[in-house]
């Protein structure tokens, strides 16, 4: 208390009484000690402050970029005198440099804190697994891992950093800047790069230190979930509730069911592998087209009649035609009695029935002769 009073003239005894009254301090036998709750709070606060979270580092880097942008804008301001422009520009660059310097120190402190914490945490794992999970998760998820995002070359912050560097190059080359400002800008580019590299390097080391612990935490979380699941199984069994194994696990026991013997399934599997995929309907290809060439086309009566005069007995005409020598009686009759578009056929009702035959045919046809002629259209 004397020390505090010496420093700033505060009434120490009054503060002391207030702390005692509010239960923060306990005075016993002329000895002062902190209550457990306050001690734990201070320990927590000390732990929390020893590692600056990645989000705060990102924020500080953004501040640096803002200072540099403001420095550039002041240098190119039209509303101020040259002296004012230089003063403001240098002031903003100094602020950027100070923040970068702070970041350098913070990065060192973070690394030291992470190394110390990881040693302590390793010992804590089995004794106090919950605290281990909470602390490792906090350090990894809040202090270390988010930095990977903004370190990435494609991140917004990385792009802003490249933009800020370009502004500093512009200041360095600007005819509006004096020698002092140009030199300051040149030095600041280097500091910005060095600090960024230093943060990245220490971040890699912190990741290397904490990743094994975080992997442990992931496994522990998995184990915790398995334990919760096992509790659920016990709970269901004790309540006589079904475990739902058939619905979810669907473990099989494939039986032949009188359809296949083991050896036939085996044979089926072996053969199936060699089967080529085929469509359901496939017209088999012919070995040669010789057979096709030998097939006779149906007689086209119109084509036979078109070149000549009307015919009195069309069936005799077809049977005796030079080009139809190989055609049978049946094929010739089919040609005459089928519908023949373009040909008009008329039975000679007054004539006596004739007998028609052809060499090699076992049948004969009896009927009245028919006239045939091609109908001229148009």
């Amino acid at each position, binding site marked *: 208390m004397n020390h505090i009073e010496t420093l700033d003239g505060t009434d120490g005894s009054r503060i002391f009484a207030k702390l005692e009254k509010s239960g923060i301090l306990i005075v016993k036998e002329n000895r002062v000690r902190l209550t457990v709750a306050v001690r734990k709070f201070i320990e927590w606060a000390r732990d929390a402050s020893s590692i600056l979270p990645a989000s705060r580092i990102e924020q500080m880097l953004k501040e640096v970029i803002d200072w540099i942008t403001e420095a550039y804008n002041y240098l190119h301001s039209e509303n101020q005198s040259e002296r004012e422009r230089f003063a403001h520009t240098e002031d903003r660059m100094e602020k950027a440099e100070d923040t970068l310097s702070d970041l350098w120190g913070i990065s060192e402190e973070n690394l030291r804190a992470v190394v110390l914490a990881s040693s302590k945490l390793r010992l804590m794992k089995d004794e106090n697994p919950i605290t281990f999970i909470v602390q490792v998760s906090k350090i990894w998820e809040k202090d270390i891992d988010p930095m990977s995002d903004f370190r990435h070359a494609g991140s917004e912050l990385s792009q802003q950093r490249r933009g800020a560097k370009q502004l500093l190059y512009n200041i360095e080359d600007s005819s509006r800047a004096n020698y002092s400002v140009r030199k300051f800008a040149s030095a600041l580019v280097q500091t910005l790069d060095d600090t960024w590299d230093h943060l990245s390097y220490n971040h890699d080391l912190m990741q290397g230190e904490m990743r094994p612990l975080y992997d442990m935490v992931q496994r522990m979380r998995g184990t915790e979930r398995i334990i919760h699941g096992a509790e659920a199984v016990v709970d269901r069994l004790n309540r006589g509730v079904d475990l739902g194994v058939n619905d979810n696990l669907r473990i099989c*026991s*494939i039986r032949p069911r009188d359809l296949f013997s083991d050896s036939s399934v085996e044979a089926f599997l072996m053969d199936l592998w060699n089967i080529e995929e085929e469509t359901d309907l496939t017209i088999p290809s012919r070995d040669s087209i010789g057979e096709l060439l030998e097939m006779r086309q149906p007689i086209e009566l119109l084509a036979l009649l078109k070149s000549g005069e009307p015919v009195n007995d069309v069936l005799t005409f077809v049977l005796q035609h030079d080009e139809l020598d190989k055609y049978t009686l049946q094929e010739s009759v089919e040609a005459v009695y089928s519908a023949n578009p373009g040909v008009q056929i008329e039975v000679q009702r007054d004539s006596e029935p004739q007998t028609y035959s052809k060499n090699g045919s076992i049948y004969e046809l009896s009927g009245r002769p028919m006239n045939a002629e091609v109908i001229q259209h148009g």
Partner: protein
Amino acid sequence: MDDGVAKIVFDNLRKGRHISIGHDLWEPILTNKVELVDLFDRIGFELIVRSDQGYAFFKAGDDEDLADKKVIQRAVAVLNLLILDLKDKISSSDLERFIEGSKSMPLEDIKLHNIARFSSALKQLKLKDEEAVVAVFRNTQRFGFHTIEEERVRLLQASHRIFEHSMNLDSAILGQSEEE
């Protein structure tokens, strides 16, 4: 793919066996995964290969192809109860190693009936004493969730399928209580 692989896989898996990483068949299954899945699909069997988890199995399509429900329930129960039992007996690191399959436990140390709520649960499954429990461990080895070597139980990668199922039950219970 070698013609024999499909036959061996079918023979091994058709009775509900799970093949885990480390088994002689795991590499052939992984190498021929696409062909095997396609082949078995053509004849009506669903081969599931969980490459990331390290195990493979046939999933029953028809109810007629399901394994005996009572046997599977017992397998699920004893594995989960063993985890709960070990939680209080060994360190968390050792429990993690047991779950990962890098640590085994002596069969003779399994005394699930010593804990009242476990005993009650086991009686629901008609497992009246430790002998019956150990018999379940022995009989259900064939599903490939665990193995017994030199009278010690060791979990195989496929046991995670059982634990996943249990975790889903836990989620269902949480869901119920949230609804309540």
